[in-house]
């Protein structure tokens, strides 16, 4: 019904085929049956869509407010600066803040360049072939493998076989593998969306392929690539299962990348699920959410500056 109403103005001669007088866009009320005039449909749909978008924002606000109300009262300067004691029942989360930054940061530093380069290779340096389709397919499939399996792989391969031990670097490498499919796919989509004409022009002005890629394609694909990377940072920060087995649970300031470190998410998980201390758990969650809030805002601010400069 909506479909008909909608398709009519664009195929204005449709009605004529059925012997009815040609419909006039200005007089939609006289059409057959229940028909919603397009402008009304537009209003309904747009209203509905806005409701959907608003509900998403409402969920976000609810989560943030809930965590903040429950957790912020327990977030004190000492909480941010002290190491935990008594299995987390006392003390703070400073080693976890550090560990989170180290593990997630390192993971994205590893996976980001590799993922983007792979995407560049797949889009700009090879032709569409069975192989590229296969790689894309494999990446999509891996995106759905539960992180615990990545964790086990990381434990067996990085920690044990490569002898890196249960350490920040093992955790970061495992996380890098986990987010790699996402980075590759989002970068690929972003690069593909760059108009082909830009490539033509760049070549026409005497660029090599590499110059074309770095100076034109990457620049216009940057917001899309950035989205993928921000998503990956989010995923890295919030990961628990894979890190439990690779970067470990030691609640102490690490002194090198070969030390074990516990992340905030893991700390929150232990505190809340083992029922050790709810106030500390909420406080940890509050710190975690605040940190993510800050990272996103920062990334967003950078991106906007960049886009403002480019467009």
């Amino acid at each position, binding site marked *: 019904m909506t479909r008909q109403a909608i398709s009519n103005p*664009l195929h204005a001669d449709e009605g004529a085929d059925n012997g009815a007088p040609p419909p006039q866009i200005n007089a939609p009320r006289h059409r057959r049956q229940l028909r919603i005039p397009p402008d009304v449909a537009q209003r309904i749909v747009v209203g509905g869509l806005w409701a959907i978008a608003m509900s998403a924002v409402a969920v976000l606000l609810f*989560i943030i407010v809930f965590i903040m109300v429950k957790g912020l009262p327990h977030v004190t300067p000492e909480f941010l600066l002290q190491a935990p004691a008594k299995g987390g029942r006392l003390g703070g989360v400073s080693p976890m803040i550090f560990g989170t930054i180290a593990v997630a940061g390192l993971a994205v530093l590893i996976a980001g360049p590799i993922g983007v380069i*792979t995407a560049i290779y797949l889009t700009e340096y090879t032709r569409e072939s069975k192989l590229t389709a296969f790689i894309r397919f*494999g990446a999509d499939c891996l995106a759905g*493998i539960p992180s615990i399996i990545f964790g086990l792989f990381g434990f067996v391969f990085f920690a044990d076989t490569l002898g890196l031990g249960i350490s920040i670097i093992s955790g970061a490498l495992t996380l890098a593998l986990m987010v790699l499919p996402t980075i590759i796919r989002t970068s690929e989509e972003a690069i593909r*969306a760059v108009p082909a004409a830009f490539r033509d022009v760049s070549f026409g002005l005497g660029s090599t392929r590499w110059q074309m890629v770095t100076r034109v394609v990457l620049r216009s694909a940057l917001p899309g690539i950035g989205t993928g990377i921000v998503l990956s940072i989010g995923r890295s920060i*919030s990961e*628990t299962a894979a890190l439990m087995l690779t970067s470990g649970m030691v609640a102490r300031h690490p002194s090198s990348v070969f030390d074990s470190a516990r992340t905030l998410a893991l700390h*929150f998980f232990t505190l809340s699920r083992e029922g050790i201390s709810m106030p500390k758990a909420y406080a940890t969650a509050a710190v975690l959410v605040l940190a*993510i809030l800050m990272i996103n805002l920062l990334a967003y601010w950078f991106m906007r500056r960049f886009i403002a400069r480019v467009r």
Partner: protein
Amino acid sequence: MRASQGMPKRSPLGAWLDRKQDLFISSILLVVALSAISGLVVITAFIFKEGLPIMLQVGVGKFVSSSDWYPAEGHFGIFPMIMGSLAVTAGALVIGGVLGLGCAVVLTQFCPRWAVSILKPSIELLAGIPSVVYGFIGVVILVPMIRVHLGGPGLSVLASSIVLGIMMLPTVTSISVDALQAVPKAYRDGSIALGATHWQTTRMVILKASRSGLVAAMILGMGRAVGETMAVIMVAGNTLDVPDSILAPVRTLTSNIALEMGYAAGDHRKALFATGVVLFVIIMILNTIALTVSRRRSRRKSGA
């Protein structure tokens, strides 16, 4: 040569390098790409190597279709988990897909600029919230709500679908937004010029033109939902029965793996890897379906 006198001359070596640059860079990129891809291949091989033998030993058919999961007694059947994963993912896709796509359409089509600058980052922020926090809030808020108002244990397909739907929303939205934005403005203007309303244009022109990107968004979102572990363990209930309603508790493939991996040894552990293999295959099938659907449609379109 008059015209190019301003251009610096290259040494013969430099010129040769310039000429061969594409080749060099291409091979360097190839190495990096191959290392990334080999990483992905190795982990795939790892899963299959650990999981396939026990699966063949039990018998693939029995492993997939039996409902008896008693690892201590050597019974390995994951039919309920397969159904559980499918149910939860379908629910999540309905919720997350509708929400995510809705958000993307609003963001790209019906939204003033200032609102985009609030909406988009908040949706991306949702992606950064740890799954344990989602699961935790699910347990503390959503589960009691379902238990009190709808009955059942609260831990249920419905709870997991809602939590997963919200978790996949940012993935779906951000990729859909990119796809929708890639549609040339001329399409939209052209349609509006033909008298279509904004919504008609969106529906008939923009959504169609960006279909492949939207499908990719759904696939990636679905991948996130199928593969999510921690939040699902917390809110799904993890019973061994096939769920008979959306209020029934459910165990998914991922939660099966993550629940027991920490303690499993021997055949039990291998059976959990085999669960991973099944998960991988399911995702493969889902992706294949999605790919062929989008490809066939686009072919029919271009043929018409």
